[in-house]
């Protein structure tokens, strides 16, 4: 139970995510910082972005993100900067490289398979596609040969 309690403390300690003193004066830069923050994971939390988290580490990361953005980095460069230091684990949106292609492609591939099976099934059940019974076939042959 202690484990669940700790988990709950981590997901749920509410209070503050972005604090007033972190907000950048330039609203455009701030908006970009928010977008970037939502894609980065708070490393000590459970499934929370640094934008939502109030952990100390999340705050440090938020400040770092803003620092990079103010320094002139693009969103991608900022994310790359953080990933370089904290690893792939920090990304809430996994990269589309290597084995992760499987993850990203799983939906479309499954849709193709399921769609194909479904289509084949429906085609088979079309009224005119029903197989004739042997007797019917024989009768048909007879009629045709006449």
């Amino acid at each position, binding site marked *: *139970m*202690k*484990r*669940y*309690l700790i*988990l*709950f*403390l981590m*997901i*749920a*300690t*509410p*209070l*503050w*995510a*972005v*604090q*007033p*003193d972190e*907000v950048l004066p330039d609203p455009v830069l701030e908006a970009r910082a928010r977008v970037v923050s*939502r*894609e980065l*994971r708070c490393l000590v939390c*459970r*499934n*929370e*972005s640094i934008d*939502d988290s109030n952990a100390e580490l999340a705050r440090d990361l938020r400040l770092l993100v803003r620092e990079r953005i103010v320094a002139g980095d693009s969103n991608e460069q900022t994310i790359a900067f953080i990933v370089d230091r904290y*690893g*792939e*684990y*920090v*990304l*809430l*949106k*996994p*990269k589309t490289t*290597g*084995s*992760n292609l499987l*993850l*990203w492609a*799983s*939906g479309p591939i*499954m*849709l193709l398979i*399921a*769609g194909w099976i*479904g289509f084949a*099934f*429906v*085609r088979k*059940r*079309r*009224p005119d596609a*029903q197989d004739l019974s042997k007797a019917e076939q024989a009768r048909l042959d007879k009629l045709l040969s006449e």
Partner: protein
Amino acid sequence: MTAEIGHFSLILAFCVAIVQMIIPMIGAQKGWGSWMDIAIPAAITQFMLTALSFAALMYAFAVSDFSLQLVVNNSHSAKPMLYKLTGTWGNHEGSLLLWVLILTLFGSMVAFFGQNLTQALKARVLSIQSAIAVAFLAFLLFTSNPFLRLAFPPLDGQGLNPLLQDAGLAFHPPFLYLGYVGLSMSFSFAVAALIEGQVDAAWARWVRPWTLAAWIFLTIGIALGSWWAYYELGWGGWWFWDPVENASFMPWLIAGALLHSAIVVEKRESLKTWTILLAILAFSFSLIGTFIVRSGVITSVHAFAEDPERGVFILAILAVAIGGSLTLFAARASNLHSKGVFSLVSRESALITNNILLVVAAFVVFVGTVWPLVSEMAFGRKLSVGAPFFDLAFTPFMVVLAMVLPIGAVLPWKRADLKRAIRPLWGVMAVSVALGALVLVVQTGTRMMAPIGLTLATWLVLGALADIGIRVKLGKTSAAESLRRVRNLPRSEFGKMFAHMGLGLMIFGVAAITAWETEDIRIAKPGESFEIKGAWSTYEIRFDGVNSFDGPNYRATQGEFTVLSNGREISVLRPEKRVYTVSGMPTTEAAMDIGITRDVYLVIGDPQDNGGWAVRSYVKPFVNWIWFGATVMALGGVLSLTDRRYRVAAGARRKRRQAVPAE
């Protein structure tokens, strides 16, 4: 003493479950009536024993019996009585006992109300239901016994997590479990049908209400959990794609697919194999969900290693239940012969499309949920899969589903003329697209979220109404005749209408909050006023002051804010910051001005050096439509459940049986 009674009756329930698992099944195979009939009293006894055990545990929580380890860890004498009682299932052991209680409740309901089932089918269903109970009772008794005593009881308990003291959270597990476990009925019926080798319309008429009930409970349970997160966690998020949420979402999606495919079995005697497979899958996802939540394996591999016994036990249950049922399916499914023929454009095809979309969407959620684990074990890549992935990978399926739904809903069975069928919908489509376009023009920025969301929502809501209109020949005949037809429509038609409309309302809420939410973070001093711009209106917020007071078991700092719109006061909000004295844990209580078109959501934070306070305010447009939509969906389910054909479904099968002379 009561704890021992609870423990003993749990052991007895386990013994009864073993009997109920074996004897009726043998009876059904051999055709021995008296062996089959044992299932009925056994199921009822099993339920009563489990209920007694649960009552004993609840009593221990109510009187704060700190000689029980579980009570010590999860309760406290200072808790309000309501939360002492709900604390019974606010922990691993107690929640599992509740799980089993609901399982046996469903079993006893089949025993009690199932007079019109054939003797053999009933015996088999109850036997399989009991097999699940055996597995979980064993799990409970051998790895998670809730009735363990302590040699030296402490003076007071340790469990007083203030966040969990909330009605929304306290009541959402029972709903979720009613849903999860309700799907065990569909599973038992599916496996029994595979053993019997027979699936017919009467079978579907039996399975559908159970699935529908489970789906309704899941809908309510998920909505309650989401609503709780919204008002309690302090920033108004309502869905996080957390593994625990996904665990309940996957069975919901599959149950939705199952509901629709069972219609095809019932009305057209087609899609039998697929429906059986879905019934197995739906419960499998429930089990997987239980596994995810209970073993903690997804949260971190280490959590699993901390407590391998439990994890391995559930994994074994999973393997036997899923593996066994799928093997049986593979062996027997080809014996099930579907009858109906239908063309490419037909209600049947539309429902197959629905099934494909829902199942693939559930599959995506599943892959995303387990990917961190798979990736670490198979590829050595430690990574996270969070909301941005699911938003991208899951949403398209729902968009397509919403696009085809109103068309599929009006197609006739067997063979349809697409042009003719959708003729009445052109107007609806035009209105929907026009509304979306209007939003696109009016809104600032070019994000497509809101326009698409509004178009789909209108399309779904008006489409559902149009469907009823078509059915009653609105405009094609006299108003009086249409009205007469409305009265004669089966209730399930209105169920369908509400469920589909609910989906539309929910989509609109989701799109609106995602596109139009506005936020303001600032330091404000008492006496100051500030403005927050909503998507279409501006609110002035006046910070009137802060006071402190003591609650029953916490200290609170409460801000007072007046919300004004165009200089007119619309409400006074009092967000709080609490520190619970026993745990020292801080929480926020957000304050909301709830409205149909928007919520104004205020949170107060820490005091600042300059005498100001950190204040966060949001305008959340149409956010309540999300839960309102879910409620409307559930209401649709209830309407459908009370349809006349389920109430009279009774006679159907028996009559047919009688008509055919004995084998």
